[in-house]
C-alpha cells in the first residue's frame, strides 16, 4: 500500500519514502537551478569564461531574463525541499546514520583507499560509510551556503545584513558560483559510485528496499 502521508518505517526498508521523495525532487530542481543559473551567468561570466560553442550549443545566449524568471521561481521549491529534508532527517532520527561520528575522518580515508583499490580488505558494513557521511552532510551544508549567498545576491539591500556573513555582494556571487561547480563535482562522483555499487543499491533509492 502506497501511503505518502505515513512515515514508512518497515523492517526491510533501506530508505524511507520521505527521503526518496526529497532525493528525487532535488535532482530535477537542482538541475533547473543550475541551468537557469547558467542563463544568468552568461550575461557576466566573470569567474570563468565557458567557450562560445558551449553557450551556443546549450542555448544559453541572450536569455538573462528567462534565467532570472526560472531561477527566482525554482529557488522556492529547491529551498522548501531542502528545508523539508533537513527537518525530516532531524525529527526522524535519520541524522544518526548521516552525521559523521567519532573517528569518521580516519574511516573516510580508509574508504577512499578502498575505492581506489589500495586497501584490499572489505569495509565495515554500515548504511552509509564515513566518506558517504561526509559527502551527504557536506552537500547539505553547501545547500545552506547556496541559500545564504543566493539571498545575499537576490535582495542585496533588503537582506544586506547577510553581506557581513558572506563578504559583500561580489563575494557572495563568487561563493555561489563555486558552490555550483562543487555540485557538478558531487554529481559526477555520486553517479560513478552509484554505478559501482550496482543495481540493487540504486533500486533501494527508488523502491526503498534492498
Amino acid at each position: 500500500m502506497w501511503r505518502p502521508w505515513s512515515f514508512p518505517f518497515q523492517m526491510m526498508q533501506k530508505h524511507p519514502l520521505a527521503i526518496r521523495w526529497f532525493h528525487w525532487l532535488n535532482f530535477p530542481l537542482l538541475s533547473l537551478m543550475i541551468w537557469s543559473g547558467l542563463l544568468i551567468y552568461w550575461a557576466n561570466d566573470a569567474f570563468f569564461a565557458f567557450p562560445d560553442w558551449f553557450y551556443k550549443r546549450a542555448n544559453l545566449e541572450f536569455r538573462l531574463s528567462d534565467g532570472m524568471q526560472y531561477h527566482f521561481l525554482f529557488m522556492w521549491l529547491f529551498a522548501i525541499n531542502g528545508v523539508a529534508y533537513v527537518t525530516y532527517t532531524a525529527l526522524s532520527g535519520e541524522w544518526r546514520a548521516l552525521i559523521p561520528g567519532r573517528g569518521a575522518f580516519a574511516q573516510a580515508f580508509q574508504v577512499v583507499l578502498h575505492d581506489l583499490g589500495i586497501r584490499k580488505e572489505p569495509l565495515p558494513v554500515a548504511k552509509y560509510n564515513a566518506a558517504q557521511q561526509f559527502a551527504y552532510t557536506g552537500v547539505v551544508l553547501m545547500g545552506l551556503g547556496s541559500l545564504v549567498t543566493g539571498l545575499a545576491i537576490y535582495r542585496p539591500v533588503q537582506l544586506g545584513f547577510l553581506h557581513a556573513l558572506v563578504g559583500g555582494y561580489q563575494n557572495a556571487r563568487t561563493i555561489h558560483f563555486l558552490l555550483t561547480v562543487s555540485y557538478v563535482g558531487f554529481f559526477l562522483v555520486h553517479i560513478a559510485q552509484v554505478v559501482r555499487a550496482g543495481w540493487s543499491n540504486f533500486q533501494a533509492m527508488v523502491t526503498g528496499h534492498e
Partner: protein
Amino acid sequence: MSNPRRSFLKFGLGGVALGFGLRQALSINPHEWNEAVTRRLFGARRLTPTFPASQAKDPRANGDVGLEEEVQDWQLRIEDPSGQRQLTLAQLQALPTNSMTTELMCVEGWSQVVSWKGTPLRNIAPAQAPEYVSLKTPDELYYVGLDLESALHPQTLLAWEMNGQPLTPEHGAPLRLVIPVKYGIKNIKRIGTIQFTPHRPKDYWNDRGYDWYAAL
C-alpha cells in the same frame, strides 16, 4: 511487501506527474509572485549601504536607448493628476541636495561603487501622490515604472553629478535617476518627464521579459 516492479511503476508515474506539475509552475509569473512577497516582507524601507567616496569609480555606460537625439533647452516636465509644471536644472539644484556613495548593481551581475549628487525625488513629489511613478526620456524611447514607495525612498535621487563631475551624455546628462534599491535598469538616464500616476506604468525592460519591480 510491495514488489519492485510496482514501485518502479509508481516512480515513473510520479515522475510524469512531477513533470506536469513543473510545467504548470512555469505558467505562474514568478516576478509578480516574488514582487508580492518582497513588498509584503520588506518593501523598500531599508537604507542601502554607503561606501567611502574613495572606492567610487565610473561605472560602465551600459544602455544608450533614448540618448541619441541632442537635447536643446532641457527642462524637466512633472505631471501629476492635478496638473503639470516644468523645472530647469538650476531650479532643481536649488532644492535640498544629497550626496551619497552607493553600489550600482546591474541585472547582468556586475556592480560598481559610485558617488552621486542630486536632489531626492521626494522633493518634487506632490503631497498626495498616487501609487506609481513613470519616468521617460525626452524622446520617450526609454521609460521606467516605479512603485511610489521606492520612488520616495530617501536615497532615490535626481542626480546631475557623478564622482564629482557633471554627468556626461552617456551617463545621462543633464539629469538621471539614481535608485539604489533597484537594479541599474531602473536608473533611467536623461529624464524628460516624471509622471505621478495611479496606473502601473509601462517599463522598457519589463516589456522585454524582466521583472517590473526589479528590487534589490
